[in-house]
């Protein structure tokens, strides 16, 4: 790891690292990239974001750019570290490497993150932006979202769900969106779909789980059935129970997926999820 203060220094450091990682007596290190993965990580999410990255880079060889905004920092500076995380490929003597760039955006530098990121994007490959916490609304943050092909959020990280969903719905025509809370509901959506046609007349859903997960499940059911399905929510850390009109729903899969797994799945997706968008849009004032 090294401390760098400009994009040029970052690029040079990456080149040096790549050369250093070449095996002394063999061929060059394999460098296969499938995307640029950007993570916008405000201070309170640093630990969670770093934890999620473990295991992710191995599954998605990419250039990962972790942006740590520090708008309150007195300095107007960019501080970066670069790292090459290499994994020995099964049955291979060569290593496959992913680049991880951590950039601390201090002071005014945090207001225009897109201009920092754009020179570092891998040409012609998709850009995924994982946004920790509520999605940014400033002009600079909107520009960063504009750089991405897919915005990945976890609405369970939001303090004010309704307001955030309304704002997110306004972005749907600009960028494809993944919501990890929505991904977590997949086994329950599959289970409810499997109950068709018995589930056709359901009018009330009871969910013991995170508010975001429960809300999305209820809005999904409402938009799919074309009528309102009420939600009774018992807050819990993860979905523990779903009842449709008092009848327990059993998911086909009960294994809890890790944060890395859930994000990893979203990085395999391209295009818009119109079913999710409809569920979220139904929360906007025009729809309610």
């Amino acid at each position: 790891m090294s401390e760098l203060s400009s994009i040029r220094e970052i690029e040079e450091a990456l080149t040096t690292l790549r050369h250093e990682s070449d095996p002394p007596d063999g061929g060059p290190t394999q460098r296969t990239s499938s995307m640029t993965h950007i993570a916008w990580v405000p201070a309170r999410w640093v630990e969670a974001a770093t934890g999620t990255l473990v295991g992710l880079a191995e599954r998605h060889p990419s250039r990962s750019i972790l942006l740590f905004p520090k708008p309150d920092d007195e300095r107007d500076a960019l501080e970066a570290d670069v790292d090459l995380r290499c994994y020995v490929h099964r049955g291979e003597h060569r290593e496959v490497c992913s680049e991880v760039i951590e950039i601390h955006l201090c002071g005014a530098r945090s207001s225009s993150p897109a201009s920092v990121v754009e020179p570092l994007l891998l040409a012609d490959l998709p850009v995924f932006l994982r946004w920790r916490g509520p999605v940014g609304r400033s002009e600079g943050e909107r520009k960063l979202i504009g750089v991405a092909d897919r915005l990945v959020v976890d609405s369970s990280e939001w303090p004010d769900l309704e307001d955030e969903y309304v704002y997110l719905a306004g972005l749907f025509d600009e960028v494809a969106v993944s919501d990890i809370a929505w991904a977590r509901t997949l086994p329950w959506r599959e289970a409810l779909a499997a109950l068709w046609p018995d589930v056709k007349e359901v009018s009330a859903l009871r969910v013991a789980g995170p508010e975001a997960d429960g809300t999305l499940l209820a809005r999904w059911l409402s938009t799919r059935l074309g009528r309102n399905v009420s939600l009774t929510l018992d807050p819990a850390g993860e979905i523990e129970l779903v009842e449709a009109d008092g009848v327990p729903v059993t998911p086909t899969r009960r294994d809890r997926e890790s944060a890395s797994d859930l994000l990893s799945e979203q990085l395999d997706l391209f295009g818009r999820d119109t079913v999710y968008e409809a569920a979220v849009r139904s929360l906007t004032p025009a729809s309610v």
Partner: protein
Amino acid sequence: MTQVAENAENPLLEGLRRRRTPEPCALTIFGASGDLTQRKLFPALYALALRRLLPESFAILGVARSEMSTDDFRASMEQAVKEHGRDEFRQDVWDQLAESTRYVSTDFADDPGEDSVIACLNELDETYGTAGNRVYYLAVPPAAIKTIVTELGERRHATGWTRLIVEKPFGHDLESAKQLNACILEHFEESEIFRIDHYLGKETVQNMLVLRFANGIFEPIWNRQFVDHVQITVAESLGIEGRAAFYEKAGAVRDIVQNHMLQLLCISAMEPPIDFTAESVRNEKVKVLKALHTPGPKHVVRGQYGPGYIEGEEVPGYREEEGVAPDSMTETFVAAKLYVDNWRWADTPFYIRTGKRLPRRETTIAIQFKRAPHPPFQLDSADELRPNVLNVHIQPDEGVSLGISAKVPGQGMTIRTVNMDFLYGGAFRTGLPEAYERLILDCMLGDPTLFTRADEVEEQWALVDAMIAPWKRDRPGFPNYAAGTWGPPASDELLHRDGRSWRRH
């Protein structure tokens, strides 16, 4: 019902990625005590169970002559999964799979044996709700297939579907393949028969179709105008590994050329299918087989390895292997020049070679393009400009590499060939599924796209029979290559005569 129709009926299905989960069924493995079951089938079933790809209602019945109890069989398979599985071992997943596993020790030719198998399957239907749906996996020697198929045909279950997976070798020549087809078709429909060639289940083999038909840059140059020739190599560093009884009868041509190699040739040479349905894909492959020109004796080279060195270790020659006749004339190496007589490939040779005890294990398809017509550079030697080669690595390092010429940095104009590599595991580090996982799942789903159709097998055998017919008349001086080398000198001469050479490995 189509997915659109299903979604219209059930609006909750829209947007849900439909996982390929088969209908309830019981899988019966004949030859359950064998090596294939331990090394491949059970590890594959465990991998499918771990990924929740098996049906909710599922059961396994192992059938073999070896005397053992169900508990012994489960313990043996548990060990096999631990040793040969590609995933971490999870006791809960295994316990669930083992719980619905049974074993019946029997010689299937005996009436009581047949009845005990059927009785066990009926019990599994009742206990696990497998609904009379049956997959029979025939991992048995060819001689046993006819008996089993006949008995199964006579005991078809009144309800549910039946599918039959038949392992290679499917016959030993055209006549026996026809007889086997006729025997099976007497009791089963073609749509119920899944002739397995595990090469087709390999991700990289399927990726060959994607490479060709999903990339706009390759297909326009994938023809005689731009391709100089194609080389297909299936090399093994292993010997016969105690399979003398089988190998003495089969040899390299029946073991590898008739099935794996011709499949690789077909997917390299076939026209784009109109869709990826089983019939469309297999129709195109059959067209290639029909277009294959029978090679003359000068275009086929056979060899047998003598003593030599593999990875620094001295290894015996084929005739010194246990169970092999000291004067055996079985070939352990075959190379051939084949032509696909059609508009796309006329006069473009497809060189194939396969052998045992070659220097390394490797399966590749190399598409060698024609040289640049006029190099404008002043070079010391015209040989410095090498043709572009697209290498599709099937195993062991799955991926694709393209050899291109690049300028060596510095003064002057020195040109060197460099490889642009796409390493499968480097871009998609999810762990490639084993071929058997894909194929067993496809069979349970009733999708025969990656299985061999009756007419395909017969076309393969017709070519092989014609290739080896002249072998009855001459006796080459075997052994004619040392273990650890790339086959007999005649193999190199086959290409040198055309001004070409085998790729360097």
